């Protein structure tokens, strides 16, 4: 098991490429959870405000919270997917490392954007919905479009992940 300095640091499969892969795993869940947390918190403010004078709408007003949870599920699925490809027994190429980093960042940052949007729209949407019940369909449509942003990030992340290959490692 005598790896030379050149083998370890240069070529297609250097020793630091798993770092990039695991940063991808971390980025996927960390950023999407951050977005989901902001979405839950901000829409929770609106739900609490609206629920004090209209408690009967609470079940419908929790829809932004469920959608923010789904953004976190996207990040979770992506990070499980990426970490499933990593195995210390196999060679791991720099190409796979970069792909996994890109994959994690895609789903993470788009999840951040989607969660941010769900938070702001959920907050004001629930407050308006408490006063005007016909706003419900409009609010749900805007929330669906916000969540689809996270879905696009997950789709790109999945497509990237299928391209990872370690065949060039000796």
């Amino acid at each position: 098991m005598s790896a030379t300095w050149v083998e370890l640091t240069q070529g297609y499969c250097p020793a630091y490429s798993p770092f990039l892969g695991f940063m991808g795993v971390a980025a996927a869940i960390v950023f999407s959870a951050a977005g989901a947390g902001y979405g839950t918190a901000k829409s929770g403010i609106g739900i609490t405000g609206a629920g004090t004078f209209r408690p009967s709408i609470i079940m419908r007003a929790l829809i932004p919270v469920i959608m923010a949870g789904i953004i976190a599920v996207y990040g979770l699925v992506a990070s499980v997917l990426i970490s499933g490809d990593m195995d210390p027994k196999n060679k791991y190429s720099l190409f796979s490392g970069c792909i996994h980093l890109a994959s994690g960042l895609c789903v993470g940052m788009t999840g951040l954007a989607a969660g941010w949007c769900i938070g702001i729209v959920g907050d004001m949407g629930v407050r308006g919905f408490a006063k005007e019940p016909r706003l419900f369909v409009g609010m749900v449509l805007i929330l669906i479009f916000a969540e689809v942003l996270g879905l696009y990030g997950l789709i790109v992340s999945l497509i990237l992940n299928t391209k990872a290959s370690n065949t060039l490692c000796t």
Partner: protein
Amino acid sequence: MPRTKAKPTAAATTAHASAANKATATSKGRGNRTHRLPGAPDSAEASSQEEEEDVQPANTPQIPGNVIRKLLAFSLLLLVLPILAYFGSLKYLFVGSTASSAIVAVIVANFVLAAYVYAAWVEDASEHAAHPSSTGKLKRR
């Protein structure tokens, strides 16, 4: 303008206080007490409540039990089903193809969301049927 409502709401709430907990929560929140924060002390209501019954102290949660059960059920479903779908389809359906399993997990998660929106919508419709006047818009200004 809210002052004229103090007496009838006090009577309404004491009448409801003797009923079951679940029934009072939704009917209290609708229409009658729209301009009063739950934390605001109302001496007439508090004293009459304490005189009549000990069933409902001043700060019991105003959410009916079935709403909390539904919420818990959906939260557990959202937690468990997508991951189960991912690993299940990875093992049995598409052996080794992780991308397809992830797509299945995403579809399952969106199904849970659609089921929640449907359940909330149906609950709204049944409330409308039961209390047509009190779930209307707030126009008391």
